[in-house]
């Protein structure tokens, strides 16, 4: 069963593009990554799912229900953590969390104390006395408090130190094991890599592709680094399947996808100081998608 189904979702702010024809679906029980650079449309998509904004055209369903029409009903089972958190400044942490809990039926409020303990958060402090990272912790607790069936995270790790990020990821994994579906938006690939099974890549408001994270890494891309002395004819290596060709002092870098023997042929007769053939990192694959022409992006 698909928890989220997005169908040709488009949002324009006046003439300014938000997203265009975004379509993908998230299955029950998975941790789905949503990656793209800043301004690509990740937040716009998520805000449309939460009916904070109204789409220009297209539709989206959550738990099989239209997310604008049944917005308030659907939101009972959604936990949301925005990239930047703001709360009523003059309230205490405890008061904000209790207020948040009062919106849901059957909330186990003892979770406030236990989650605060895990996150190392002082419940008696006032919101305006909290640091950015601590405010974020309040956000995490209020997002997870009511044990939602769907957790939507919009660049959630900003402001958290690496140790706390680890704790946070563990919390998310635990909720996922209990059955929660997770939509995880980020522009940091390593964290998506750590957590997600599948991932949608968004660029300039359109989905470039949806892929399995393993497939993405296993793609036949090889990263070549050639160290040489003197002058090298760069064009000699510019054959089909080569991308991201860059020259850096006396070394040549590129990604290659295709028959490896053709590359070996080219390498013959070259005087090299060193040769490195590696699996590219997700970052590099992503940059590759990101820089590609539109037509090449859909093979």
């Amino acid at each position, binding site marked *: 069963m698909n928890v989220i189904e997005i169908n040709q979702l488009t949002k324009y*702010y006046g003439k300014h593009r938000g997203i265009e024809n975004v379509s993908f679906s998230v299955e029950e029980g998975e941790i789905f990554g949503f990656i793209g650079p800043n301004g690509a449309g990740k*937040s*716009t998509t998520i*805000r449309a799912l*939460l009916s*904070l*904004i*109204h789409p220009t055209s297209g539709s989206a369903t959550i738990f099989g229900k239209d997310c604008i029409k049944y*917005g*308030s*009903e*659907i*939101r*009972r089972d*959604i936990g*949301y953590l*925005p*990239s*930047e*958190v*703001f*709360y*009523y*400044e*003059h309230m205490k942490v405890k008061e904000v969390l209790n*207020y*948040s809990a*009062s*919106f*849901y039926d059957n909330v186990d409020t003892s979770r406030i104390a236990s989650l605060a303990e895990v996150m190392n958060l002082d419940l008696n402090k006032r919101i305006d006395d909290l640091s950015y990272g601590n405010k974020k912790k309040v956000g995490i607790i*209020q997002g997870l408090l009511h044990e939602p069936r769907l957790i939507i995270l919009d660049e959630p790790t900003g402001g958290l130190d690496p140790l706390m990020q680890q704790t946070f990821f563990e919390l998310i994994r635990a909720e996922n094991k209990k059955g929660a579906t997770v939509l995880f938006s980020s522009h940091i690939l390593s964290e998506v890599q750590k957590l997600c099974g599948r991932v949608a890549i968004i660029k300039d408001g359109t989905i470039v592709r949806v892929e399995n994270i393993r497939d993405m890494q296993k793609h036949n891309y090889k990263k070549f680094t050639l160290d040489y002395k003197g002058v090298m004819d760069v064009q000699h290596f510019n054959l089909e399947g080569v991308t991201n060709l860059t020259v850096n002092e006396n070394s040549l870098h590129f990604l290659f996808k295709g028959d490896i023997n053709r590359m070996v042929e080219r390498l013959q007769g070259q005087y090299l100081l060193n040769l490195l053939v590696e699996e590219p990192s997700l970052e590099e694959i992503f940059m590759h998608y990101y820089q590609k022409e539109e037509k090449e992006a859909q093979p």
Partner: protein
Amino acid sequence: MNILIQELRMGRKTLIIWCISLIGVLSLFMLLYPSIASQLEDFQRVFESFPIEFQQAFGVADLELASILSFYQFALMYVLLAGAIQAMNMGVSILSAEVREKTGDFLFVKPVSRNRVVAMKILAVLVQILITNAVVFTASLLMVTLLSDTAYNLKLFTLFTLSLLFIQIFFASLGLFVSVFLRRIRTVLPISMGVVFIFYIIHLLNETLNDDKLGLVSPFDYFNLTEISMNMNYDSLYLLLWFVLVGLFTFLTFKLFARKDLPSI
């Protein structure tokens, strides 16, 4: 209910300050009464020597200063002005605060519909207006009773004082409408002060011009205290207009806010 309680809790301090200020304005004028009561007839004569336009502009034409209610009417005008600003402030800020303080990402992802949030917030404004009026009514009743040696017309006093309620509800609904109509509101006070003063100036102008059509523009004219004291009742046409406008502003607030986008910060 939780939203209502939350709103009332957040507005508590401001409400107390406003109530104290309104009583302050009222007592500032009313406490002058005993010391100048004996000289009021002289005052009256001084006012009468002014040109009639001048008298009208200051709301002292047809004024029987010697009677306590006439004096109260004079003082109440400033309470109405301040009360209008208070109500408009509440109206403009109660919805826009969620955008301005960026707390919308908290409230509007909760399992409540926009309409319910708007309804609860309007209710919170209404409760605060009622509290303000109860406080002002009690305080002014006490002052007028204590300061007056002779009996006064309680009905007229009630009509006078209740006009604060009507004017506050009008400006609160106008404020709500303005807040959903404008895209982004950075500061509330200049908007509400500006709007209220424009209406007040129109009202003052109309005191001299006495133009019926101009009277339709300013809510201060709907509850013209001098007219009320002459007719011993509110003007039913103006009352109807008040009702229609408040209804329209409230309806549009619901309609516009339900469609409003809350873009990311």
